């Protein structure tokens, strides 16, 4: 019973925390660029404002356009139940392993692309085609990178992978783990539309990907999609933080260890957010035609991760 309560608490925490993470990255980036920047809680205000606004829908849009925000949001909410954010093992571990997580995320991407195509605006189509290009290259890498860890743990269950790394701390420094971390970090940037692949700070560029697809959305639909994107970022951060550096994740369901788990999660998120902010300040956006090269770097890293953890077992 406590397990199910904890699952629910974990999902709610992820949903509430996610806009703050996006705000934190934006704020850090602004400070690094000598701007004052909006406070980290600005995204909450934006979401609140958008939820109160009316929805304007193009006359050409079909039911898909109305359904897509809910599908996208539901898919990330489902993933928050399956990813080890605070504690392992969780009762829902048996329902979905790493493959379910990867394909739930892909389901959201797929519907978002359909919704981009649906109203027939040229930007939406462009965004959708680019998103599919990126997703087709990034998705196998996510699976492969986590497979490298799964090989060590002997299970594709995310909870078991975390538990295994905690019992064998040396594994965290093995080449399999390091290569997989590099691969997953690059994919995180690609999947969540961060800088070398997509520019999250603008929706007035011909090169945009995520913003191009949601350009036609307004009001609470837009709020849902923005929120889902923020939760996706949080999910990737907690995968990076908890699969590779699992210390802090609660193994027993006592209040003390859970408090430690929340604190360590916050620390990991702040570190990763700082890394992303520094990276986004240092580098420029890649040309679209170089994006597949970046993703093939991450694919090769993931491939090496799988081989070395397979051969060095």
């Amino acid at each position: 019973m406590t397990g199910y309560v904890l699952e629910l608490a974990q999902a709610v925490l992820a949903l509430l925390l996610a806009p703050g993470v996006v705000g934190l990255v934006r704020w850090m980036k602004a400070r690094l660029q000598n701007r004052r920047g909006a406070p980290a809680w600005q995204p909450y205000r934006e979401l609140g404002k958008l939820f109160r606004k009316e929805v304007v829908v193009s006359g050409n849009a079909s039911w898909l356009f109305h359904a897509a925000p809910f599908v996208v949001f539901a898919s990330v909410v489902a993933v928050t139940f399956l990813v080890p954010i605070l504690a392992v093992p969780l009762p829902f571990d048996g329902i979905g392993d790493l493959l379910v997580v990867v394909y739930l995320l892909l389901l959201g991407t797929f519907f978002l692309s359909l919704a981009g195509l649906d109203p027939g605006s040229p930007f939406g189509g462009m965004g959708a085609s680019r998103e599919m290009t990126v997703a087709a290259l990034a998705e196998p890498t996510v699976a492969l990178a986590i497979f490298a860890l799964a090989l060590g743990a002997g299970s594709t269950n995310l909870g078991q992978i975390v538990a295994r790394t905690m019992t064998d701390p040396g594994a965290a420094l093995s080449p399999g783990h390091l290569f997989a971390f590099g691969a997953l970090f690059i994919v995180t940037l690609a999947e969540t539309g961060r800088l070398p692949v997509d520019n999250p700070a603008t929706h007035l560029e011909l090169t945009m990907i995520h913003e191009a697809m949601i350009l036609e959305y307004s009001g609470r639909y837009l709020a849902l999609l923005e929120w889902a994107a923020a939760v996706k970022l949080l999910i990737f951060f907690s995968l990076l933080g908890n699969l590779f550096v699992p210390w802090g994740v609660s193994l027993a369901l006592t209040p003390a260890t859970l408090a430690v788990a929340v604190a360590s999660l916050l620390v990991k998120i702040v570190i990763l957010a700082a890394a992303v902010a520094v990276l986004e300040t240092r580098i420029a956006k890649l040309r679209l035609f170089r994006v597949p090269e970046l993703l093939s770097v991450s694919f090769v890293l993931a491939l090496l991760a799988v081989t070395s953890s397979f051969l060095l077992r």
Partner: protein
Amino acid sequence: MDSLFSQLCVLGSSLVLIFGLILLWRRGVTAYVTAFTWQSIVLAAVTVTVAYFGHDHELYWVAGALVLLKVVVIPRLLRRMERRFAAERELEPYVNTATSLVISGLLVLFGYAITRPLVALSQLPTRAGMPLAMGLVLVSLFVVISRKKALTQVVGFLMLENGITLLAVLGTYGIPLIVELGVFLDVLLGFLVMQIFIYQIHETFESIDVEQLNRLRH
């Protein structure tokens, strides 16, 4: 203790290999020189680790010589060449970036396959890093044959040498100091000769694209 030692060696070897892969993905000479410098620093760190855990004092000297030659002298010479040829970027290699990355992944796999008997025979705690060193050797060879600019090929050659040094350090705790010194001298001389060649190629063709050398046949 041994497990920490082997973890550190594998970690170092992985980093050395990753710096080797940068050569395939980046295009500017500046990035190559930085990657080579960092690779040599990590290589020296691995050597010091082996010296400390293997109680081999000669290896400290080897590490010192390595830092002097490959972190200070050669990068400085490379930077001087870079100032002159900075505009010569690796824009059209024989094999495009995405394909060469996949090929290099396969080469590392091949490295794992051929060092398997070696790893199985060895009792040393450093053995797990050997496939990665072999992978670096193969990837660097691939850089040398698939890139057109002479400067990229030189960096590829230097990384090949780093791979061989790493293999020696991991496989046998280093070769005798006197041999190592000879190797370092060879590397330096080889590098200087290649430098002269590059300047000559540039003099003749106003470019360091080695494809131009094909014209010499006529």
